[in-house]
């Protein structure tokens, strides 16, 4: 393992003093023609990239009201300057949301506003040149699109929108990020981010069925490509292969089994994640999400349920209907799509499941709100259900639950540090620093309340935390899905089914 700088964790989250360029060295690996070509992006930087980049910005200004308004109306009040986890972890001035956006605003002013054309020095306008592009590539890959800044902005300016636009502009001129673009290629080829082919997926699901049979004595099925099932379950592909994700997958299966609702996983649409969002591409988002709709029709299911994955839930909840809807071919009695937490919560409400809280008595649990779920989606009929429903599930599954500091949960939650397409090894230094605010709040409840389990509902959070928490001396076993707790507590047999 490389020698990383792990920040010291204080008792409270402290705003670091301002520094310049502390993270300037950390640019991600660029994509090559091999990754870019299949997306329809230029394989290398195009010759007239400055002109093309500015043109693309002009195009996006006409396509996205968010971009047009947000580039115009920031008053530089500074409310966002201490809100980003990457700023808190690095102290780099360009990781203050307003300053990150300024990288694009200065270019916008130069080419699209009278003031920037006439008085560039007065209003901070900058040419779209080599230096600016370098900063774009570096710092627009140090934003996880978590939207925490947008909560505190008096105008709701959402840096995620600006980061997405920047990445789309860079892709259009052949300056892509290898990690995200490569992963999208895998989805188109094999149906999922991890590149798992159908035989391997089938083998895994069979193995898990045996595993559940061995440990519980119950024949819980994990069907693949089964036509006529009630529900198509779309889970992040990490749920099939990674720890602790796989524990939640077994949890979902047990819930379906116990409720007596048939479900299937699709090998063609074996991915809930949608990295099209991370690179800001509407077309890619639509294309990736389309696989799910096609499979829902082909397999003749009545419902769509999405597994534990933060940005996937954002795309599913907020975008699917626009991208490929309407879902009028599904059972109208249920929301389409439905989150697995909504699904399980509904069953508990209706008395269809029996949960033994004592099965989780070894755990003292806290909950990490994942950024996209918290600030970009909803669960259930009421605003804020995305906070209450997962917590209800935890309380129904275990006896000891405690929340972290209120400034670090719900709508004010901190990103895990690995979201937005940054969950890649070359950005490890950023990921370690970015998790610091979350670690600070977690350590406090570990000390004050003996918390030893942090439940969450995001595949990226799970992967990020299990990797970086050990560097802070926190065991990776501390992290797991909400449905891992459900899986432990659910009573199989003594079948109740749907009431």
């Amino acid at each position, binding site marked *: 393992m490389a020698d990383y700088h792990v920040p010291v964790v204080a008792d409270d989250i402290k705003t670091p003093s301002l520094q310049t360029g502390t993270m300037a060295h950390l640019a991600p690996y660029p994509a090559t023609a091999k990754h870019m070509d299949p997306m329809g992006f230029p394989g290398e930087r195009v010759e007239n990239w400055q002109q093309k980049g500015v043109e693309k910005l002009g195009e996006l200004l006409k396509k996205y*009201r968010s971009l*047009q308004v*947000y580039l*115009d109306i920031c008053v530089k009040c500074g409310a966002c300057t201490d*809100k980003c986890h990457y700023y808190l972890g690095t102290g780099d001035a360009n990781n203050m949301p307003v300053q990150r956006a300024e990288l694009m605003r200065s270019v916008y002013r130069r080419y699209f506003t009278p*003031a920037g054309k006439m008085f560039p020095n007065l209003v901070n306008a900058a040419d779209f040149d080599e230096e600016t592009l370098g900063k774009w590539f570096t710092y627009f890959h140090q934003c996880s699109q978590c939207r925490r800044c*947008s909560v505190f902005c008096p105008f*709701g*300016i959402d840096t995620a929108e600006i980061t997405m636009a920047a990445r789309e502009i860079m892709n259009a001129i052949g300056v892509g990020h290898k990690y995200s673009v490569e992963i999208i290629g895998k989805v188109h080829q094999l149906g999922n981010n991890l590149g798992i082919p159908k035989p391997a997926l089938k083998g895994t699901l069979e193995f898990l069925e045996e595993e559940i049979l061995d440990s519980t004595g119950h024949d819980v099925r994990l069907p693949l490509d089964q036509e006529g099932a009630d529900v198509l379950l779309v889970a992040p592909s990490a749920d099939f292969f990674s720890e602790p994700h796989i524990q939640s997958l077994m949890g979902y299966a047990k819930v379906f089994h116990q409720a007596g609702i048939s479900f299937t996983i699709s090998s063609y649409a074996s991915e809930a994640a949608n990295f099209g969002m991370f690179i800001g591409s509407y077309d890619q988002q639509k294309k990736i999400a389309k696989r799910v709709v096609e499979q829902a029709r082909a397999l003749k299911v009545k419902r769509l349920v999405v597994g534990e994955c933060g940005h996937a839930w954002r795309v599913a909840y907020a975008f699917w209907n626009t991208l490929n809807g309407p879902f009028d071919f599904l059972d109208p009695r249920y929301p389409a799509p439905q989150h697995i937490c909504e699904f399980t919560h509904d069953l508990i409400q209706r008395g269809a499941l029996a949960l033994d809280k004592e099965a989780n008595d070894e755990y003292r649990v806290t909950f990490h709100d994942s950024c996209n779920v918290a600030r970009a989606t909803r669960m259930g009929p009421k605003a804020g259900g995305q906070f209450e429903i997962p917590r209800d599930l935890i309380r129904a599954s275990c006896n000891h639950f405690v929340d972290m500091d209120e400034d670090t949960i719900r709508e004010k939650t901190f990103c895990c540090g690995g979201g937005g397409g940054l969950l890649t090894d070359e950005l490890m230094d950023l990921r370690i620093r970015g998790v610091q605010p979350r670690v600070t709040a977690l350590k406090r409840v570990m000390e004050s309340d003996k918390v030893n389990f942090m439940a969450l509902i995001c595949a990226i959070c799970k992967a990020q935390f299990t990797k970086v928490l050990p560097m802070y001396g926190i065991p990776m076993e501390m992290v797991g899905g909400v449905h891992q707790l459900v899986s432990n507590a659910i009573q199989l047999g003594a079948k109740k089914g749907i009431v």
Partner: protein
Amino acid sequence: MLTFLAYIVLTIFLFGFLSRIFAYARSPAPLKIATTPAPTTRLGVIWRLVTEVLFFNSLFKGDKLAWAGGIAFHGAMAVVLIRHIRYFIDPVPAFFGPLQIIGIVAGIAMAGALAFLLLRRLVFERVRYISSRADYLVLILLLAIAMSGLLMDFVLRPNIVAIKTNLMAMWGSVTGLPPLNSLGDVTFLLHLLLVGALLVIFPFSKLMHAGGIFFSPTRNQVDNPREKKHVNPWAAP
């Protein structure tokens, strides 16, 4: 001469402001991106926007000092602007009588709040770092407007009655000038020119936040993407 200038200024302001607003209104919002938890009804969204504009809810969560300065400045300016209506109408309704003293107190509050915001921008490391010359210029301009106004209230009193008569008549003549018989009258001219400058830069600057906030998709969208299909106007069918 001054009238001519005034018409140009008002044209730039109105045309510029409205063209920005139309640009915002025309640009499509392809996806639902409300910052959640968000209202699930149209009425809820109106309430969210109204309270955001009146009380700066989000800023209150984010930065208490900026919130205090911002609320004080905007609130005071609103009162000052209402008081100024008396200079444009004749006869002046009785309601404006007791408003005089409130307006003057608001003027002092406005200048104080601006000074506080300027100081905050200079003193706090992070806010200083993100500030451009234009950010200071706007504050200084507003402060100069407030100070020249207060100066007329307390020190250099212009012949306001003559000015008003003159101004009311001026709108019809291109060559009119207000009386310049005292330092107070000169201060008034300065005050007027500064306001003109503010109006001219308004559409081309961050001052557009005044209209822009109503078009912020994270704040003005209803959180109902599953219940109602949101259509992207530029999506390929």
